[in-house]
């Protein structure tokens, strides 16, 4: 969403550029919004993570993303203190955001994750839910 707003602002700011019909704006990656609204709360806008008493791993240039099954497992099932996002995100959103991270931030993995793969390989949301009611 912020990508779109920025693009509109750029158009208003430079009307000369806007009149050129040939340059169509590239559509934002469908996973970018999910990344901004969820993932970057911990992994940061530049996907470099952070380190304090503990560490939030960098997703940038991350070799463990090579096998697509691994990020599918972590995003759907969580890992240690990282919550699971099965149920909070759709399989489509999960595949979108994994594809976004695997093709950005210095990651250049060509194969694509599909919602069907998330459905098949993903960890089911725990029955007990995120917390006691």
């Amino acid at each position, binding site marked *: 969403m912020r990508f779109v707003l920025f693009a509109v602002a750029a158009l208003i700011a430079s009307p000369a550029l806007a009149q050129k019909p040939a340059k169509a704006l590239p559509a934002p990656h469908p996973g970018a919004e999910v990344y901004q609204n969820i993932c970057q709360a911990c992994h940061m806008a530049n996907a470099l993570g952070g380190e304090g008493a503990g560490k939030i791993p960098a997703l940038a240039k991350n070799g463990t993303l090579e096998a697509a099954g691994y990020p599918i497992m972590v995003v759907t099932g969580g890992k*240690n203190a990282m*919550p699971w996002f099965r149920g909070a995100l759709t399989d489509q959103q999960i595949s979108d955001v994994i594809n976004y991270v695997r093709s950005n931030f210095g990651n250049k993995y060509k194969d694509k994750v599909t919602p069907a793969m998330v459905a098949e390989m993903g960890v089911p949301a725990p029955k007990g839910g995120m917390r006691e009611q």
Partner: protein
Amino acid sequence: MNWAEQGPTRREVLRTIGMMAGTAVLYQAMEVLGHAKETQFAGPPNLQGARPGTKVVVLGAGLAGMLAAYELAKAGYDVQILEYNNRPGGRNWSLYGGDTYTELGGATQKVGFSEGNYLNPGPWRIPYHHRALLHYCKKFGVALEPFIQMNQQALVQSSKAFGGKPMRYRELHADWDGNVAELLAKAIDNRGLDSVMTKEDADRLRIALREWGALDQNFKYSKNYRSSRRRGFERAQGGGVLGEPIPSDPHAFKDILDSGIWRTVAQHMNIDHQHAMFQPVGGMGMIGRGFAKQVEGKIRYNQKVTSISQQGGKVTVMHTDTGSGVTGTTEADYCVCTIPLSVLSQIDVDCSPGLDAAINALPYSNSVKVGLEFKRRFWEEEEAIYGGISFTDREISMISYPSGKLHSDGPAVILGAYTFGPASYKFAGMTPEERIQRALEQGSVFHPGRYKEEFIGGATVAWSRVPFTLGCCAQWNEDTRKEHYQTLVAVDNRLVLAGEHASYIGCWMEGAILSSLDAVTRLHSRALEA
């Protein structure tokens, strides 16, 4: 109708017992009858007789860690605390003017609040029934004052009702009760409750509804003196010529339903939000400071724990000084570890496979708080809102007016956002400046023409980016409780865990305190058996 006809009241029974047998029996009787219920605090543990020279290393100088150190030192142990931060308190924390805070990712805020103003990034209120925490606050000289949770003069705003216009809590609450009472009375008149009540009880309920809902003689919730005494007058009562009040029009019930007001009302019926509530005078961080005075000289700050070993009949903790980078080793006979599991799960801990699994099993929650400082208390001066909370269905979820220094001049800080669910991730993903701007924008719905105009500056903490916790609190569910809780709290050879994550009062300071007392009591027994 005479309630006494139905047998003696509980109060009468209690008075009789009290006269006959004194207060001890009275207290026992109160417990049996379900009064005097609190969290599980039977008084401080009073540990004694540690074997001379026995050492305990405590990891973390939050409330659980400092209390463990205090009680163990009192019992005769030689205690050393290692703390990652350069201050005591852990999540018990206030940000004051002059403080600098750097979150994960490197964004640094220099807090510009005026003298005495603060943001409580973590805990900010204490329920009256958190008796253990209250006990130690009193014992350690931490001054408390009332925290105003519910304020009927505050506002409730919903995008789904009244065209998004904030309404007085008082009006919505009164109209909710009034309309529900009227509908129930109507159901009784239409004999709708005949199958579940006797005629006599239905008659009594009907009368009760009139009183409870401020209904008129015809059992209608209508515009009159009676309902306006609840929801407020169109023209308030005064003196002299124009002293006569003018009643106000209740809102349409559909609008009241749309507003979702029952959620706010229900929240205040929860035992965690019932009055009385407390806060420390001068910020929540005063509790951490108060506790730290009791363990003075025992805390080594800026120590990042890297491993915990239990080899060779002792505990060996490796740690690195975050300033100098110098590594150190602390040896002890026992260890109380209060490091949050979000961090502990990344440390090499020498323990049973079961405890290791428990440490790795719990996701941590997230939340964002934003403090906004304004030039003056316009909410008090112009709207008579003294403390309490205005609620919204926007991402900030609420704004909370300061309960301290009521009726004073000068700048004051409002809690401008306390996010839940997806909004927490969205806010935490922003830069601190963006969070503050967004909170200012969203909160201005309550006080247009004042909020942005009288804003001075803000501070914000996103818990997923807090360097010493990487999140708020451990999130248990029924299954993880069954599988891991008892293992997590059990003494593992020479190691015991404590903190809110080792309690059933998760995310509250009381949970950390009670967990700590239980852990040191069991560790002490273990040490005496050894």
